[in-house]
């Protein structure tokens, strides 16, 4: 990863849904000694997700003090 770029500038083609469901099926199917729970909890890899949104608040809505 380039150290001078922010995560959202990396253009990594992030697909949140596909990464959320990531399970190495081939590995799970061949590894017979692990149960379904282990497939669910044990085979995932860390993944990155980027969230972007408008958080602008009208001045009239802001309460101070």
């Amino acid at each position: 990863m380039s150290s001078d770029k922010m995560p959202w500038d990396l253009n990594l083609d992030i697909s949140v849904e596909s990464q959320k469901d990531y399970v190495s099926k081939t590995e799970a199917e061949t590894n017979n000694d692990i149960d379904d729970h282990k497939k669910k909890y044990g085979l995932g890899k860390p993944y990155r997700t980027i969230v972007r949104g408008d958080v602008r608040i009208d001045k009239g809505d802001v309460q101070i003090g």
Partner: protein
Amino acid sequence: MFGLTKEMFKLVRTTYLQADRINQGDIISDVEFIEAAEEIDGIITVAKIIFPLVIVLTQDCDLTWDFDSRQIGSSNQDKYLFSIIVAPLYNYEHFINGDHLSELHQKMAIIPSKMTATANKNLRQNETPRYHYLEFDSTVPIVNSVIDFKHYFTVNVQKLQKQKTEHYVCSVSELFRERISQRFASYLSRIGLPN
């Protein structure tokens, strides 16, 4: 020896704690690490890494004090923590292949899969300071895993507390968690020498 085999001693003991609070040694799934956040002209962008499993490393006494003082609403907030130290658990099979961070586009060191190879043996016998290898019994829904002490991070107390209510997996039992804690402290306090 009372029906215990050598293999059984390799397994880390775990418990399922009913306690509401976060405990040292808790294993929690799907924990978010806020990698970076930026606000420009009212548009906020947040980059997060979601770790499938993490283990809590903060000292248990600190966690107890934090929880208790929040519960009783004490007159001062002296015992409050800002965040809790956790470290990720990586799937052993991914780990030795060096591809456990492939979704983050990071290539990691490869460790020989042959169990008699020195690097593999050192990893599994917890003789490599950076890593802690864990094998769970069949009742625990976690595959053989490796904690990477270099990848520790912190999570906001309330955020992790909330995460635990839905994503608590189990807790590593006291003796085993103390060993993890001691190895983590030792790794962090190592004296770095120049190459």
